[in-house]
């Protein structure tokens, strides 16, 4: 490695020139690094800025109390907001138990066995798999056999995205629980399952809740898996067996429409989602911070 270093002092003059060149390169690199950071942060500010600007101008009580309007009329986003909440709730209700149980197996029972290794690898793939492919999968196994789009299918599609996030955080957090706690519980005769439920889960609780919050943050803006599972619904509907409106899909539809009212509602919806996601990630982050200090 050292051989590649451009450090060979020959004569006084040459080494002074070389020193100047190295110094110059260093300054250039530092300026570039500073510039890159400014670019990254500037971009965040730019996106959030235009989102706030466009979103707030359309924000009013109407948005939370009225249904999505036909083109040209005034209206709100009540049905997609409720739809999104229901779909997210359904996804968490299905995905969290499976994710926690799978993570429990990987960290508690089979920490070193083959199944765990395979599941960890597959789970990591699922974690970053394209969400539109998940939509196609649920379309094939639920929508096509049932013959119609439904909120249920949308919820299951989102659950498929929740599971890998929860598995990952549960496994990570349970692995961090000191073994001496488990040994202490076992030594007083606590069965394995109760050791896990009463000792490990309790010790890892903050981290596991964080995982669920991160999963909710991840799915609340997901559009692709909902496009052909829960589809969309212009009217008030809480029927999980029928197509259901959701914020991201409504944003998609309204933003690409030629109508000014719809576009403005799309911006407002985008603002609501972003604020919700940011609030969730900040809560998750502070939970981790609290559990680290205590």
């Amino acid at each position, binding site marked *: 490695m050292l051989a590649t270093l451009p450090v060979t002092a020959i004569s006084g003059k040459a080494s002074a020139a070389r020193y100047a060149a190295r110094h110059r*390169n260093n300054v250039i690199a530092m300026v570039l*690094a*500073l510039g890159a950071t400014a670019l990254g942060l500037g971009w965040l500010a730019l996106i959030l800025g235009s989102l706030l600007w466009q979103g707030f101008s359309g924000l009013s009580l109407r948005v939370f109390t009225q249904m999505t309007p036909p083109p040209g009329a005034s209206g709100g986003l009540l049905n997609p907001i409720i739809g999104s909440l229901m779909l997210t709730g359904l996804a968490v209700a299905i995905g969290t138990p499976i994710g926690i149980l799978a993570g429990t197996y990987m960290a508690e029972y089979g920490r070193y066995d083959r199944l765990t290794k395979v599941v960890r690898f597959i789970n990591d793939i699922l974690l*970053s798999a394209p969400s539109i*492919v998940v939509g196609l999968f649920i379309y094939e196994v639920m929508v096509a056999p049932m013959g119609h789009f439904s909120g249920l299918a949308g919820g299951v599609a989102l659950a498929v995205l929740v599971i890998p996030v929860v598995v990952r955080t549960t496994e990570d957090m349970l692995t961090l629980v000191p073994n001496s706690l488990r040994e202490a519980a076992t030594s007083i005769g606590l069965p394995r399952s109760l050791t896990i439920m009463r000792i490990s889960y309790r010790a890892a609780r903050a981290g596991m809740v964080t995982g669920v919050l991160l999963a909710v943050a991840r799915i609340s803006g997901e559009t692709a898996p909902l496009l052909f599972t829960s589809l969309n619904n212009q009217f008030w509907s809480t029927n999980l067996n029928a197509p259901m409106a959701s914020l991201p899909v409504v944003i998609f539809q309204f933003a690409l429409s030629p109508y000014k009212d719809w576009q403005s509602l799309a911006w407002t919806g985008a603002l609501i989602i972003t604020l919700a996601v940011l609030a969730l990630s900040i809560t998750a982050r502070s939970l981790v911070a609290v559990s680290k200090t205590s």
Partner: protein
Amino acid sequence: MEPARRRSVVDLALPQGALASAHAGTRAKVLDRLRLGDTAFRYLTRAAAFAVLLLLSGVIVSLISGALPALRTFGLGFLISQRWNPVTDNFGALPAIYGTVLTSAIAILIAVPVGLMIAFFLTELCPPWLRRPIGIAIELLAGIPSIIYGIWGLFVFAPFLQETLQPFLINTLGNVPGIAPLFAGPPYGIGMLTAGLILAIMVLPFVTSISRDVFDAVPPVLKEAAYGVGCTTWEVVRYVVLPYARVGVIGGVMLALGRALGETMAVTFVIGNAHRISASVLAPGTTISATIANEFTEAVGDLYTSALIALGLILFVITFIVLAVARYLLLRIERRIG
């Protein structure tokens, strides 16, 4: 915590046990129930772990079975045909594959150098009190849903590019012999380049945060030794930190590439949905995910639907390979760090 009364182990374990402990027979029953519960829980968690495996195989099987009609009709020609005609039921995947690869390549080409430089700033130059806030800001950028990038790209970024960057590129690089066709045509605003730039912004946080983590994992002794022989900060990063962190950085880049390849909403808004391969990066095109998102619900006929699912299968195979390589590389560096 417990009262000083004498209790056996099982009684400590379970309140019900304490109640039933009076009689030896009922105690045995409680123990049996515990054993049963223990086994049941163990199998339950095992079943959940298998469910994760089942999920992935379910995705693969359903995609293959859905894609079969199209693959049977068009054969391997599906991969290299440029036609996309729903009216005559003639489909080919090449324009979508080309768009997917091109936009992701643009994204990686921009995001990697910028992300590495930000990681360099965060680990070596940034004052310690600024590190956390900037790191968090970058990670928040990663949490913004892709549809937000899409709507921002459509209404703010594309019009901006149409008026500034694209005419500039056409007037300068568009006249350079050799690469002129790359920048030919009118400035549409939307198109491959715009989609690539949006993707670059989207994957930048991934590249940055992984690079920062692996840079941080470089043993300080190595850096101190380099500083000790008189290296400048840049030389330390270039000749010590980067070589040491190389595998991790490549893993992070592959992870970002996986994201870029599969990204749907941010691209769908600004790509322009044209099923053709243009030499110019300014021209509208399409990607696999954008095609599926735009056309799936309107697809009439089994062959059309099947062709779209076949596109999804191709996307899944590509991202699977990229992500698997990324995981393998990241696992290697994790093992080395220990």
